[in-house]
């Protein structure tokens, strides 16, 4: 750790300089009037199938994912592979729900989920609930991206005490904030192309080179302790690890596209068809994520956890250091620079999109709704640019001053919170049957019980639900979503009144125009 690898650091720095230039140059790409929120915050909704593929891929498969999923395999074993069925489940959801949402948002000029809920259900408080949930869930997610950068910078040997130790992170943050401010969504869209290519190169190189060094996949897997190789078979009267695995995959999948940054990426597509095509093309990233999860096992088999040169890294970052250690152990310095740049840039892309999404939410659904009703386009875009800056600064302060484990726990809570917006957003795309106040009560119940259950299970994802002597361990988010839906369904007929707020959207808004 103490030794700086100058070759790796130079390659890393050069790639970082390149994407910095690219981020600023992106302002001129498919040029639009950046004083409009839909131009700055959605890239003018002009991205075709290919750019959407890079952008959404770069958005959803974050640097933190690339570090945390293999880290889970390294530490806990087979359960980390839940990320694979998770990504199998998300794409049918993308295919079914999001083209409709894209059409209605395009037709009505909506930019956020809050905009849609406001228009569909006519209740500003329900829209506020959806927007605040989005903000709460996004903030720790941005902090975790900065953690991803921190891990690779630490691995490069750049260290120090106090402010000096955090200087590289602060520089990376400054770059991120500046190009997001000036170019909006065009910056992460163009950088995503570079990032994704680097990540693919790294993943495939690692999956080919490391097994060759270690004597093949057979040797690698025979070095894995039996307890980590498969899911533990459930004990009597319990669905055990099986239900935990499946609900974790399903719940994470349903939550994913409710995150504001996912929606921002999807709404920037140029058509509903571009989204549907991506539902079939994006699994390319899922496959790569599965390969990356295997890196956790490679790290176990290579024994990097016991090598003295990596002890300090594991002490500081825990299992999250497994992938950086494996890369340094297996590759020449120049390629270490490439791989680490892939992870570092992989953090900037989603962090930029998340901060843009959060800024859109605040500007549209809080400021405009509650403080200033009719801002000019210019005012609205200016405010969003500043809010994106403040959001990122908050994340930076958080990651520097607050212990990492709180960011991870908040991120876990964020998943439980964001899924509570599913009835209003995802079901709202299909039906106006629900009563707005019933949805609001369901949301509140889900938020409260979800938070309580998360603390009751010591901030682990799985809650041990006991019914009639059987235990069903499962993802808290999914259980609380069931409660939320139940309340919304039961209360809707009871709360329905003749003077219910109007739905400003019409059935034909949800489809492509008839030719």
């Amino acid at each position, binding site marked *: 750790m103490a030794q700086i690898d100058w070759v790796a650091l130079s390659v890393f720095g050069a790639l970082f300089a390149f994407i910095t230039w690219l981020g600023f140059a992106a302002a001129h790409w498919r040029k639009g009037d950046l004083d409009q929120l839909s131009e700055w915050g959605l890239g003018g909704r002009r991205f075709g199938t290919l750019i959407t593929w890079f952008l959404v891929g770069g958005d959803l498969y974050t640097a933190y994912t690339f570090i945390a999923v293999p880290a889970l395999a390294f530490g806990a074993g087979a359960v980390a592979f839940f990320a694979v069925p998770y990504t199998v489940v998300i794409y049918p959801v993308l295919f*079914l729900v999001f083209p409709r949402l894209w059409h209605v948002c395009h037709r009505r000029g909506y930019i956020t989920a809050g905009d849609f809920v406001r228009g569909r259900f006519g209740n500003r408080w329900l829209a506020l609930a959806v927007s605040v949930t989005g903000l709460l869930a996004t903030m720790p997610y941005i902090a975790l991206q900065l953690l991803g950068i921190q891990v690779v910078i630490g691995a490069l040997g750049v260290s120090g005490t106090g402010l000096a130790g955090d200087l590289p992170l602060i520089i990376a943050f400054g770059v991120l904030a500046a190009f997001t401010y000036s170019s909006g969504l065009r910056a992460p869209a163009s950088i995503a192309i570079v990032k994704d290519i680097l990540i693919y190169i790294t993943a495939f190189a690692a999956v080919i080179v490391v097994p060759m060094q270690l004597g093949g996949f*057979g*040797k690698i897997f025979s070095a894995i302790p039996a307890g980590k*190789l*498969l*899911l533990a078979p459930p004990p009597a009267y319990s669905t055990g690890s099986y239900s935990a695995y499946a609900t974790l995959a399903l719940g994470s999948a349903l939550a994913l596209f409710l995150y504001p940054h996912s929606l921002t990426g999807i709404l920037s597509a140029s058509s509903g068809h571009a989204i549907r095509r991506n539902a079939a093309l994006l699994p*390319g990233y899922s496959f790569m994520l599965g390969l990356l999860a*295997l890196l956790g096992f490679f790290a176990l088999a290579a024994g990097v956890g016991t090598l003295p040169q990596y002890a300090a890294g594991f002490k500081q970052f825990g299992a999250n250091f497994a992938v950086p250690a494996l890369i340094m152990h297996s590759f020449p310095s120049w390629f270490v620079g490439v791989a680490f740049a892939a992870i570092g840039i992989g953090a900037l892309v989603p962090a930029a999109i998340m901060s843009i999404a959060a800024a859109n939410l605040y500007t549209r659904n809080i400021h405009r709704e509650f403080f200033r009703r009719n801002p000019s386009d210019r005012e609205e875009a200016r405010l969003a640019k500043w809010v994106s800056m403040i959001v990122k600064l908050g994340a930076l302060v958080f990651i520097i001053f607050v212990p990492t484990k709180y960011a991870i726990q908040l991120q876990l809570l964020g998943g439980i919170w964001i899924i509570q917006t599913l009835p209003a957003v995802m079901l709202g795309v299909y039906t106006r049957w629900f009563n707005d106040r019933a949805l609001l009560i369901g949301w509140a119940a889900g938020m409260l019980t979800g938070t309580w259950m998360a603390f009751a299970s010591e901030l682990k994802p799985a809650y041990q639900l006991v019914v009639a002597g059987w235990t069903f361990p499962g993802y808290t988010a999914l259980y609380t979503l069931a409660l939320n839906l139940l309340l919304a369904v039961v209360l809707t007929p009871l709360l329905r009144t003749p003077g219910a707020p109007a739905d400003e959207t019409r059935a034909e808004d949800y489809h492509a125009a*008839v030719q």
Partner: protein
Amino acid sequence: MNAQTPRRTRGGRAWYLLFVVQFAVALYPPLFNKVDPTLWGIPFFYWFQLAWVLVSAVLTAIVYWARA
């Protein structure tokens, strides 16, 4: 069906059953929680789920072509 019918209604909704197949297999761990048969030394649990990603992508593409 008259000439006014939008393109999107071409093809039956039965195609969506392919999504149900994707879900059912991916979310039922007893099906794949085993070591054998291995592929190039990779336990079944891992290679099967990776292969299922590719199968799912093909199934989604079929739904796209059938419905679009």
